[in-house]
């Protein structure tokens, strides 16, 4: 078997992966760094992020306020030490990106401009019009080109982590172009594979977001954290699931039900004002807005369409000029994909699966409990997002924790010996598995798309915006059956060259494992918090559940959920208040005295 070797290996070339690669190269230019990505890095899903990236930069703002908004927005499930690190380093990272050429939108005097975002009490979201992720990713990619220690494996698909003597020592990957299956060994591996929205039928996530890294880690023995927390974004275009960014509401858009009424006023989110008010109405947090939609739907106040119920997002009063300068991509997407012009027409929207709060459990340096394995970006759970991520926190999360993981992995790698030969035997076994179970197998009876659709409807039904014990248990059963049927999969494609069907099958395998972990965590958490709403346990229960769900995979393939207390530094759990009250109340600061160190 062919082998190549590096010191630090990145799986993923999105925002987190590229930031980590550059950080590792800067810490130690002697290291050899590999970026392995199943798509060309600039195709990674970071490219579609629209609204912006939060980081305190203006005089009227403070790190504590950003921390408080994130922690209360996350319904007190965030680790507060992680949040404090995050808010402190986010502005530095965003500035660093400015130095690398990111075309941030500016104020007339040339300083960085910031916009309001849901759940944030101050304006602190940096943006590059409404193509923030696109500009960040291309800036990172183009900048990475000048670092010689970085070797890219473009369009290589990682199938397995190689673990020996309790330490991750590389990966097995398929080079799509040739179909070659080979080992790439490394002294440290960082997973930056992004989220897993494709487990659900209706999502803003790209085709490549299949939870690969979560499954890779889980199978290798690293636990996942808080998998039950899946974010629905309140404004997706029906059918396509294309996201209409929250920036549309921060610029002043209204949410209207079928009667043209700003229904959010009925859900403890404040009183309607003509201009946007921070942490109020349309600028409430995403979990609350998506839940409000479900209630409106139950009251019969939504509009029925072939692609489900919808409400409207109204931007017309903003006028053509504001829409063209602040929200050009929103207009482009509406016109190109929905055939409507938001300058003159209402935009039909419905909640759509958007972001995974949970992920591979890491500390604030991106390290997982498995030696040599790191994770950063959406694949990881540090956790700064708790039970509900605030919009515009995840792009800076990719930068802050990507950079931290890159540095930590570089330091770790410098102290390790070259990976030992026994991982190569594992790699050969993996190649045989891929060939016998997929590539050369004939006679299977199941189609990929049938099982994939089965999984998607099951997960949506049992682990959607509202959940209950009975349907979760039923969902868990169905997923087990789908796992069995997956073993009987049939591929039409037995070519080695660019076999996208093989890739789709392996992604489906990853998604089934991740789906199971979501359902198991959701079953285990018998309370309601943030994005996890149990109709059979409607209240938050801090006594039992001010804790992360940690899910391990047992040797027999079943799972085991344990609880890990949340790290509280300075903000005692309180009620989440939005609307007028949040305007008058100062965030309760330093309720707890800070422990030394």
């Amino acid at each position, binding site marked *: 078997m062919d082998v190549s070797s590096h010191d630090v290996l990145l799986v993923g070339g999105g925002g987190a992966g590229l930031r980590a690669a550059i950080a590792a190269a800067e810490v130690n230019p002697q290291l050899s760094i590999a970026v392995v990505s199943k*798509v*060309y890095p*600039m*195709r*990674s*899903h970071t*490219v*579609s992020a629209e609204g912006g990236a939060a980081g305190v930069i203006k005089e009227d703002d403070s790190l504590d306020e950003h921390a408080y908004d994130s922690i209360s927005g996350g319904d007190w499930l965030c680790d507060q030490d992680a949040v404090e690190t995050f808010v402190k380093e986010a502005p*530095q990272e965003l*500035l*660093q990106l*400015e*130095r*690398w*050429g990111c*075309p*941030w*939108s*500016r*104020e*007339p*005097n*040339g*300083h*960085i401009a910031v916009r309001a975002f849901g759940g944030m009490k101050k304006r602190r979201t940096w943006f590059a019009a409404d*193509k923030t992720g*696109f*500009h960040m990713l*291309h800036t990172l990619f*183009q*900048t990475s*080109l*000048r670092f010689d220690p970085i070797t890219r494996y*473009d369009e290589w698909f990682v199938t397995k982590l190689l673990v020996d003597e309790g330490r991750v020592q590389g990966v097995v990957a398929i080079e799509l*172009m040739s179909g070659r299956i080979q080992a790439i060994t490394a002294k440290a591996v960082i997973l930056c594979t992004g989220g897993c929205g494709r487990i659900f039928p209706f999502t803003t996530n*790209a*085709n*490549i977001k299949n939870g690969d890294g979560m499954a890779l880690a889980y199978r290798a023995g690293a636990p996942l954290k808080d998998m039950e927390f899946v974010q629905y974004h309140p404004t997706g275009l029906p*059918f*396509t699931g*294309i*996201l209409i960014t929250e920036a549309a509401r921060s610029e002043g858009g209204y949410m209207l039900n079928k009667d043209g009424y700003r229904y959010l006023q009925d859900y403890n989110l404040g009183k309607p004002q003509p201009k946007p008010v921070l942490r109020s109405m349309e600028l409430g947090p995403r979990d609350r807005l998506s839940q409000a939609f479900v209630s409106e739907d139950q009251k019969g106040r939504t509009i029925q369409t072939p692609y489900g119920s919808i409400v409207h997002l109204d931007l017309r009063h903003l006028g053509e000029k504001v829409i063209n300068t602040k929200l050009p991509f929103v207009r*482009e*997407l509406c016109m*190109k*994909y929905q055939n409507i012009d938001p300058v003159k027409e209402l935009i039909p929207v419905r909640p759509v699966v958007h972001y995974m709060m949970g992920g591979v459990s890491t500390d604030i340096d991106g390290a997982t409990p498995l030696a040599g394995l790191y994770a950063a970006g959406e694949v990881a759970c540090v956790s700064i997002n708790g039970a509900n991520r605030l919009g515009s926190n995840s792009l800076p999360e990719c930068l802050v924790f990507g950079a931290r993981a890159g540095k930590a992995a570089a330091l770790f790698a410098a102290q390790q010996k070259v990976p030992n030969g026994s991982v190569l035997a594992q790699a050969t076994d993996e190649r045989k598995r891929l060939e016998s179970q997929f590539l050369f197998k004939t006679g299977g009876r199941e*189609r*990929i*798309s049938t099982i994939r659709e089965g999984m998607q409807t099951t997960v949506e039904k049992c682990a959607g915006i509202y959940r209950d014990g009975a349907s979760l248990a039923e969902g868990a059963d169905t997923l087990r059956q789908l796992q069995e049927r997956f073993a009987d999969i049939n*591929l*039409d*494609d037995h*070519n*080695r*060259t*660019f*076999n*996208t*069907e093989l890739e*789709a099958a392996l992604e489906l395998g990853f998604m089934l494992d991740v789906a199971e972990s979501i359902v198991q965590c959701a079953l285990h958490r018998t309370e309601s918090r943030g994005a996890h709403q149990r109709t059979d346990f409607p209240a938050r229960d801090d006594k039992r559940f001010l804790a992360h769900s940690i899910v391990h995979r047992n040797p027999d393939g079943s799972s085991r959920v344990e609880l890990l207390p949340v790290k509280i530094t300075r903000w005692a759990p309180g009620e989440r208040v939005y609307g007028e009250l949040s305007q008058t109340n100062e965030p309760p600061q330093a309720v707890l005295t800070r422990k030394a160190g």
Partner: protein
Amino acid sequence: MADKIILEVARYSPEQDTKPCFATYEVPVHKEWVVLDALNYIKDKVDGSLTYRWSCRMGICGSCGMMVNGEPKLTCATFLSSYAHNGNKIRVEPLRYFPVVRDLVTELSDFLVKLKKVKPWLIRKDTVPLSQGEFLQTPEQLDYYKQFSMCINCTLCYSACPVVGLDPKFVGPAAIALAQRYNLDSRDQGAVERIAVLAHPEGIWGCTFVGECTKVCPKHVDPAGAIQQYKLNAVLDWLTSFLMPRGHNSQDVKP
């Protein structure tokens, strides 16, 4: 609108075929469906071996470019219904002028080499610590290069460019526009370093100004404009090089 449409799709597997051929599929037409949805329908329901790239389905990742009835298009942004009148047939082929890997997948490594060649990163002669804050840039200065920063690397412009077809070494529209994106950025000081690649027979002087690149660009980047602009400045540079000490050049003149 017809409820079915015929897709003629170019198929080629180097392991099985000596040359490409067309396969014909009948697919349902829904008003919301784009060409990419039709390909996904075929792959999911009819033939899982059909091979193409896609990811975002929102016209921003740049993966899904193909020839649709002879024109380079992003298939996720091309509605089936706009071809419903066309004898109900759509022909889908890999992007022209690129080597074909398989079916609709083209080989991109050469494009990536060209991108890197133009040094598409911010070049500074000084190092300013982060503690000094951002480099100031007014909205007008941003507007000056913004259009050229919108390229999604979909390579449609390479498929539209007859010069690329004749001379594979030509750096090409997207890479030149990207170079100009940095040249025109008020924070960049690297225009001189990019001259060697750009002011070269395989750089801007290769372009015969057909302008097709600009016509097919789904993001209105206007590579042809970037090239013309650079040519003009390059001529000025050549003239001024007789007048001024070396190192000064008009590529560094920006608002």
